[in-house]
């Protein structure tokens, strides 16, 4: 299990390769690896930049708890949650998750679960900066509702 919270950019391709190598080593039994990559949408050119604030200390705990919960619900040979904070530009990678399991249904469901929980239970807040001003992104009711799926 790997949890990383960082301001620095990450190399998505290199992270995928390293995750698959960890997840699918000899004896892991892994047959399925799923990764999700979240990017800053350019929003039709409206967005000039984004700033992500987080709660150092709690963030790592919350992400570990979410990953541990996923590993308890599905037989995962490996889990990755990597999330950036600080200033970001349109097109930048914000975060990624990785899941690996024997079968694909578990890997898909666990990745989807991680994303749902990460969205509403990890202490990150996005602020968007556009030509017409800056605004904190509002949480969506549907994000909270999504947790009811699990």
């Amino acid at each position, binding site marked *: 299990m790997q949890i990383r919270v960082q301001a620095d950019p990450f190399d998505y391709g290199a992270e995928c390769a390293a995750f698959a190598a960890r997840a699918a080593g000899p004896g892991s039994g892994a047959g399925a690896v799923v990764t999700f990559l*979240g990017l800053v949408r350019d929003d039709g050119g409206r967005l000039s930049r984004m700033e*992500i*604030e*987080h*709660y150092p*200390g*709690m963030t790592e*705990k919350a992400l570990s708890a979410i990953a541990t919960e996923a590993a308890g619900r599905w037989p995962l040979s490996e889990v990755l949650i990597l*999330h950036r904070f600080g200033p970001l530009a349109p097109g930048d990678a*914000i*975060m990624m998750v990785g899941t690996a399991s024997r079968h694909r249904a578990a890997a898909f469901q666990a990745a989807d679960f991680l*994303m749902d929980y*990460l*969205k*509403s*239970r*990890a*202490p*990150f*807040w*996005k*602020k968007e900066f556009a030509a017409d001003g800056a605004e*904190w*992104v*509002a*949480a969506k009711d549907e994000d*909270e509702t999504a947790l009811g799926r699990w």
Partner: protein
Amino acid sequence: MIDLLYFAWVRERIGLPRERLETGAATVADLIEELKLREDRYAAAFADLRALRVAVDQELADFDAPLAGVRELAFFPPMTGG
């Protein structure tokens, strides 16, 4: 003494990211009432509790959570990670 942390627009409305406080409040809700009476910026930040979340010692909690033994309290809007 308790550490109070503020994030996102809560931090912006209150005007600082953290402060230490001596309080006799029994619960999170009691402390909020105490802060609201102190200054307008707290009243503005805590005007609508439905728009707020609280973490007690880095765990999400309810507003009626007791403060006895608590070291760190954080207030923030609903999270928007991912």
